[in-house]
């Protein structure tokens, strides 16, 4: 009966892509394992088909109370994010297909669906709903690790993510009061509401000093959970900036800082999934710079970089997840030599590494360079140099450190099984996309929001990039041979999350210590005063004291007579 009603189908199709994943997630995971895995892989494909069926310019409004909510808005910008999110969801589901944790599977699908639906939200209230659902669903991917540290990291993650949502809601209310509109178009920083929304987005985009949640929580998530996490939350924030704050100049220095500072942490961090989290933060910097520059080339570059990045970053997290899955550790100090037992994983990881480093014929080469070119075209010389420095840094932490310390370096003696087939298949698909985009960039360029007049494979570009990367690699060889490359040490590296994991608790225990001490002094003093008062009254007013003892009648009568006499005297 449902199938026979075309108008119902039409109205269902006007709902945002992504909603299907959210509502079908729980039924899908309730099926027997194989059927469930099949259903979960079909869902992203169905979602992609749904998106393909909706033309650019499609809008669908519903009225709720006094508000008109735009549940669905398809345009060139949202479409690219929708496509890559569906691809990431599919890769994640395939990578996790061996797993029988239903809760985690449902959380992952709902999370992916919410992120997809969020990019099609035409107003800020709808965006807020999906924004918060991504936060609430994704925390289960951290908690599913079921360790104490994951539980604590998940709680910290959730607090910060929900805070971002509350800022978004507060900003939306202010914007509505200022302009009477909740439409999610260009927002800008002209109003207080705009600033609140800016910070809401900035938390999710892991701005400097707001980034602590990501390096804290992502490495604590499950093997498969981190693959999902790496795809959606931060790129949703990039989308939101591209929509609401394109050309906002303050984003340029912020983004440049994001490309540069995480790489110092990435060099010395021992947990390789945490290294990848810093690397993710660094990649977001390139995108934020592009949004800040705001020209068509820059925005195209940002969007292209998002597409390339989602895939190669997922690939790198998949490879490190496979290592963690097989060996039980992801600490560089305990790994090495795994190419001997996990050659496929090593090969796929290297594809991810050269892609993120931006070698020619990989996706990073054709996407990141658009942002650098846009910076150069607008004559941001220092920004350009920072981005170039950060590109050399990417080669270190993601290009060399990740594959080198896990699969090569000193043989740890670990001999394990190769990653499960489904994991290898997911990595193979991701690797194929990385190379495919690098070899056929037009495929990616054709779906970018603006017409592309950019040619990545010029002689100058190919040779300058090769010079930069090969000589950075030679610098690694030089430092390694000299024994100057910092050894991988079992350690933690302090970052801004130190503030809320150490300083604030200490400050709080300091404050409560002072409070308790002050309370003691106050109560002690009050008690002494009370006792002193009691002693005084006892001494002078008790039945045995001078004032308190019974007086003889004659004395009382005399005092009464004296009082009356005094009264008469005053009355005259």
């Amino acid at each position, binding site marked *: 009966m449902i199938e026979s009603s075309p108008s119902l189908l039409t109205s269902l199709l006007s709902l945002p892509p992504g909603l299907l994943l959210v509502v079908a997630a729980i039924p899908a995971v309730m099926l027997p394992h194989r059927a469930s895995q099949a259903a979960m892989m079909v869902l992203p494909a169905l979602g992609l088909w749904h998106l393909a069926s909706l033309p650019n310019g499609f809008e669908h409004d519903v009225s709720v109370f006094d508000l008109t909510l735009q549940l669905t808005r398809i345009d060139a910008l949202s479409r690219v994010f929708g496509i890559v999110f569906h691809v990431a969801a599919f890769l994640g589901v395939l990578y996790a297909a061996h797993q029988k944790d239903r809760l985690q599977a449902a959380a992952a699908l709902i999370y992916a669906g919410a992120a997809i639906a969020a990019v099609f939200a035409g107003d800020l209230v709808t965006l807020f709903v999906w924004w918060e659902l991504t936060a609430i669903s994704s925390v289960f991917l951290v908690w599913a690790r079921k360790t104490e540290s994951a539980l604590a990291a998940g709680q910290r993650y959730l607090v910060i993510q929900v805070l971002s949502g509350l800022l978004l809601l507060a900003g939306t209310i202010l914007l509505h009061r200022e302009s009477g509109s909740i439409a999610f178009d260009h927002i800008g920083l002209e109003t207080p509401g705009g600033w609140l929304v800016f910070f809401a987005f900035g938390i999710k985009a892991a701005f400097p000093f707001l980034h602590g949640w990501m390096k804290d929580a992502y490495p604590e998530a499950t093997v498969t959970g981190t693959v999902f996490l790496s795809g959606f939350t931060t790129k949703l924030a990039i989308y939101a900036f591209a929509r609401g704050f394109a050309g906002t100049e303050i984003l340029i220095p912020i983004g440049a800082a994001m490309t540069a500072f995480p790489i110092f942490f990435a060099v*010395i961090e021992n947990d390789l999934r945490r290294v990848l989290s810093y690397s993710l933060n660094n990649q977001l910097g390139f995108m934020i710079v592009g949004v800040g520059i705001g020209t068509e080339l820059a925005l195209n570059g940002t969007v292209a970089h998002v597409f390339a990045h989602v895939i190669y970053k997922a690939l790198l997290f998949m490879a490190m997840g496979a290592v963690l899955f097989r060996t*039980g550790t992801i600490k560089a100090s305990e790994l090495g030599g795994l190419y001997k037992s996990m050659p496929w994983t090593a090969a796929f990881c290297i594809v991810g590494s050269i892609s993120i480093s931006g070698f020619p014929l990989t996706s990073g080469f054709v996407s990141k360079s658009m942002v650098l070119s846009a910076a150069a075209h607008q004559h941001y010389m220092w920004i350009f140099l920072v981005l170039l420095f950060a590109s050399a840094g990417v080669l270190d932490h993601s290009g060399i450190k990740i594959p080198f310390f896990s699969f090569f370096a000193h043989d740890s003696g670990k001999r394990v*099984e190769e990653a499960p087939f489904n994991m290898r298949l997911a990595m193979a698909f991701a690797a194929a996309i990385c190379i495919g985009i690098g070899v056929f960039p037009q495929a990616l360029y054709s779906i970018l929001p603006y017409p592309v007049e950019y040619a990545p494979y010029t002689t100058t570009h190919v040779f300058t*990039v090769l010079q930069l990367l090969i000589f*950075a690699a030679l*610098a690694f060889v030089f430092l390694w041979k000299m024994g100057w*490359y910092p050894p991988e040490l079992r350690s*933690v590296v302090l970052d801004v999350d130190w503030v809320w*994991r150490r300083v604030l608790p200490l400050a709080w225990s300091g404050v409560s210590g002072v409070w308790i001490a002050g309370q003691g002094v106050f109560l002690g003093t009050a008690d002494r005063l009370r006792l002193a008062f009691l002693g005084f009254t006892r001494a002078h007013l008790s039945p045995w004291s001078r004032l308190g003892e019974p007086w003889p009648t004659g004395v009382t009568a005399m005092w009464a007579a004296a009082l009356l006499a005094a009264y008469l005297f005053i009355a005259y």
Partner: protein
Amino acid sequence: MSDETSGAPAQEAPGARHGGHDGDAGGGHGPRPGEDFWLDRPGSVDLIIKLLIGAGVAVVAADFFYHKHGEFHFQEYFAFDAVFGFAAYVGLITAAKGFRKIVMRGEDYYD
């Protein structure tokens, strides 16, 4: 292969053993008897390094054969990106080593 995974958990739930895993669990370091990997042979790594140096020389030599186009004048200097890449990398690693002295703590710092 499977008889060699004695210490390393082959099918274990990954979350079950956060921390406390001993690097020697595989039963010793280095190549094992009976293994023969090309990378373990003497000279293999040196060959890779020589190839890398050769590639470096080639991409710098290429600067003689075409005119570079850059938005900034320094982009057109001979071997600019090679020098910048090498210097940036060494600078980054050196700075990070110093940075480590400030921010590195023991593994159980937050426990």
